[in-house]
């Protein structure tokens, strides 16, 4: 009787250990913040303000920009002293990480990007859904995408 209860306890311990070893994966719930590093964030922020972004705070450290209804942020900050932004790009597909913003007025955005001296403006059109995304390079060759609002019906956005 005593031996049986010891065996049962051992079995429970084995099961609990096995379950504990396999932690459930973390959930990834949003991408609310995009950081952009620059040797001169105060200057680079002027490009994004020219596109129509609104700075919540700005100074010599750069600028903190909130998206409409505070649904996210773009923070333009100082880069490491010894580092530099990436070089010129001839296409939208050269940069490692590209964040895509949704906007209410793509035509106005493109007009403003041209006027502000964007280093790259490339249009990509989806063969499946027909919408276009404009990729815009800033003065330091950082590329962001700009899609029409609700461009992907599989993603829930505000």
């Amino acid at each position, binding site marked *: 009787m005593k031996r049986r209860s010891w065996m049962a306890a051992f079995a429970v311990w084995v099961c609990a250990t096995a379950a504990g070893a396999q932690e459930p994966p973390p*959930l990834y*719930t949003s*991408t609310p*913040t995009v950081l952009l*590093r620059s040797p001169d964030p105060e200057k680079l922020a002027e490009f994004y303000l020219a596109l129509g972004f609104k700075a919540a705070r700005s100074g010599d450290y750069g600028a903190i920009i909130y998206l409409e209804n505070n649904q996210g942020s773009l923070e333009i900050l100082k880069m490491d002293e010894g580092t530099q932004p990436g070089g010129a790009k001839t296409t939208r597909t050269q940069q490692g990480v*590209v964040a895509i*913003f*949704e906007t209410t007025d793509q035509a106005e955005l493109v007009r403003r990007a041209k006027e502000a001296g964007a280093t790259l403006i490339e249009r990509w059109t989806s063969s499946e859904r027909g919408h276009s995304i404009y990729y815009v390079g800033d003065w330091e060759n950082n590329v962001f995408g700009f899609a029409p609002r609700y461009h992907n019906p599989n*993603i829930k956005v505000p």
Partner: protein
Amino acid sequence: MRRFELAFVLCFTLFGGGTLVSAQDVVDATQRAPLFTSTPTILLRTPDPANLAKFYEALGMKIARVSERGSVFIYHEGNSGSLEILKIDENTQPGGPKTSRTQQGVVVIFETDDLDEVVRRAEAAGSPLIEKWTSSQAPISIYYIADWENNIFGYAPRYHNPNINVP
């Protein structure tokens, strides 16, 4: 003259569309700033999407689908956003090794419900850079984690910025 102007305004209003548009309105309309409403999609370019996707799968991200071209689509919890791992241009390469989180131009920050588990998984997956940053204003840390090709993302606890509305 004044009577003529009034008659013109009346006729325009009644028969010319019903609304008077001033020159200032026209200027405002052409210069109205577009609204930026969200950042639902993050693209990550690599020479080998299938291989790099294994890193993010190891972190616990779930692959929703793989396209015919080999692009890997990952959706966040509740489909609130996506990470799409795509092919980089043939003649280009990912960036080189980085010694800190502040070297890269664009860094996107994910929110997660289990930061410790993300870090544990990143270490197990062989991340070349894991750097912790702690806010001086609030008791919040963000971990910056590089993948096998030195792309850095930030990982913050859910609802880490009370000024931003997130799902």
